[in-house]
């Protein structure tokens, strides 16, 4: 009996029990759709996080005060061992840290901005001109901060795209005045949008010279302290060298002899990325596991139905054997039937999964990535499930003695 013939016989058998076959397929269908959707959700979330972190800049290191290791009585983040402007200055030294290309200390605070009668509360960031290259930002209008602004405590600001839009609507903000707190600042430039993938606040901030921020906006004890220092390595190859230099320099400056007791943390994009993705990875594995379980249940459904089918068609099997079907041919027929059930469920499940991946993001605010490899693998899995769970029923059919099969009523 040829393969085509076997396949046709299987289709006949499946067609003659439409409801039962349909319900059996449903188990596989739901399993496959669930696997495709959860894997897609997980991958989508990871890509979102990755692009958000990548949009921070390239070859970036972030120095934050406080330590991840909480030893003894030492204070945590924001304690007396804060980073200072002088730390940033030391890190800019080409002699002590040749692999650090640029240093941007930042300090920020949420402040109300007023332009005419429009109010907008946003994050005001005090930093240096190096910030633009370190954070890899471009300007859509005007200019960025200059060294001149820094040394002269100039009351100038560069607005991010959303902030400019909120304060001035469609009008050109360059040259206009905006009051930060109660101090009037001149808008000298507007940052281009960081793109869709970036975190929301990247497009909603006002950048001012760090000296101006310290003297005229924040004042007080925060005058010389900074919240974080962004470092840019000269290239991706020198990233770890830059990390070592920064670490050593800051340890010396802060008079810390034990590296484990450092009162600061240096994070690279890679470490930020791996922390963020490990969470979503765990979630994906968890959800994928549940989906895989439902696939297993679907497979058991196939086995159940095939066993029922063998019992119900015992006379047919006997007749086919009497007419010359060998055990191998009978086994093959039932295996093909089970895999056709699996494949049909898999194809429908993949279709449902893809439709879900295309429509769900419009209902919930998350990206679902359809992975062609995962989809193909899911369809192959569905055939494999049909085959694997068809083996036992098929060999039961093949083992039936023809007379026992013919005799049964």
């Amino acid at each position, binding site marked *: *009996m*040829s393969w085509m*013939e076997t396949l046709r016989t299987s289709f*006949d*058998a499946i067609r*003659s029990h439409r409801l039962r076959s349909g319900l059996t397929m449903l188990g596989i269908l739901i399993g496959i759709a669930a696997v495709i959707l959860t894997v897609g959700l997980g991958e989508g979330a990871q890509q979102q996080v990755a692009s958000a972190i990548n949009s921070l800049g390239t070859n970036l290191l972030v120095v934050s005060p406080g330590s991840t290791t909480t030893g003894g009585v030492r204070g945590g983040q924001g304690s007396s061992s804060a980073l200072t402007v002088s730390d940033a200055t030391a890190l800019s030294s080409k002699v002590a840290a040749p692999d650090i290309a640029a240093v941007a200390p930042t300090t920020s605070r949420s402040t109300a901005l007023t332009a005419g009668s429009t109010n907008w509360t946003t994050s005001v960031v005090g930093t240096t001109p190096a910030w633009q290259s370190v954070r890899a930002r471009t300007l859509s209008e005007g200019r960025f901060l200059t060294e001149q602004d820094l040394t002269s405590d100039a009351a100038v600001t560069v607005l991010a795209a959303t902030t400019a839009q909120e304060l001035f609507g469609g009008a050109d903000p360059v040259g206009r005045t905006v009051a930060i707190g109660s101090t009037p600042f001149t808008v000298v430039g507007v940052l281009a949008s960081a793109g869709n993938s970036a975190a929301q606040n990247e497009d909603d901030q006002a950048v001012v010279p760090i000296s101006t921020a310290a003297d005229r906006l924040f004042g007080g004890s925060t005058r010389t302290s900074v919240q974080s220092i962004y470092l840019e390595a000269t290239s991706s190859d020198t990233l770890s060298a830059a990390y070592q230099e920064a670490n050593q320099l800051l340890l010396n400056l802060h008079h810390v002899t034990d590296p484990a007791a450092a009162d600061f943390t240096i994070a690279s994009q890679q470490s930020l990325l791996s922390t963020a993705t490990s969470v979503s990875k765990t979630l994906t594995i968890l959800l994928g596991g549940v989906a895989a379980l439902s696939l297993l249940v679907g497979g058991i459904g196939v086995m159940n139905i095939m066993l029922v089918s063998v019992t119900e068609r015992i*006379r*047919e099997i*006997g*007749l*086919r*054997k*009497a*007419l*010359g*079907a*060998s*055990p*191998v*041919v009978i086994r093959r027929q039932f295996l093909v039937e089970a895999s056709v059930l699996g494949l049909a469920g898999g194809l429908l499940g993949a279709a449902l999964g893809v439709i879900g991946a295309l429509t769900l993001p419009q209902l919930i605010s998350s990206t679902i990535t359809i992975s062609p490899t995962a989809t193909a693998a899911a369809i192959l899995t569905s055939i494999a499930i049909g085959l694997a769970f068809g083996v036992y029923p098929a060999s039961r059919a093949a083992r039936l*003695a*023809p*007379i026992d099969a*013919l005799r049964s009523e």
Partner: protein
Amino acid sequence: MTLDMTAPLPTAGDTAGPVIDISEVRKVYKTGALEVEALRGITLRIEQGEYVAIMGPSGSGKSTLMHILGCLDVATTGTYLLAGEDVSGLTEAELAVIRNRRIGFVFQQFNLLPSLTAWRNVELPLCYAGVAKAERKQRALEVLARVGLGDRVEHKPTELSGGQQSRVALARALVNKPALILADEPTGALDSKSTADVLSVFADLHAAGHTIVLITHEEDVAEHAERTVRLHDGLISSDARRTGGVFA
């Protein structure tokens, strides 16, 4: 109803010897600790072209004998030469090939597959023999025409009368040009008119040179055969040849 007498005769194996040659065949069934000896030493020869009825009350072993003759079951001891070929020690897969090539079955309930049309039912043995699709259909249609169902080939079994169903079953038995036609109570499920109809087809097949073995418990059906073998308690109690009978 007539048959095409010019149709080629079936080949009865490589030798010109008897179609069936069994000697000292015993069959023991084991059910738990109990052993039942269904056949207690049967020796029987059936020559090519014979029309034999096997009779016996229930429990006489006639069904067991039919299963062994049809290669659906194997004897516990004894030898069986089918068309000159020893089939006593064959595996299930090898027996399947023998059944397919040498034997045409007609079962009591006809055992037609309800989801298939008449000609699809008839071509089944050819499917398992590996015959190409076009030839299968052609041969199935030919045989259906021979049994007088040329105009019913696309009907499903439920759309056919009992007599017509039995003819489809006959066509299926004939399609592979078997050495032996083995019929198990072929009239058991039929009214008297259909019974006469089926028996006339058997008579035509016999006249055309086919070897027919018919298992029955009806005397008037057995009378149509030229030889009657009676079984009793697993042994042959009589083996009578009718000479100068209806068909001689």
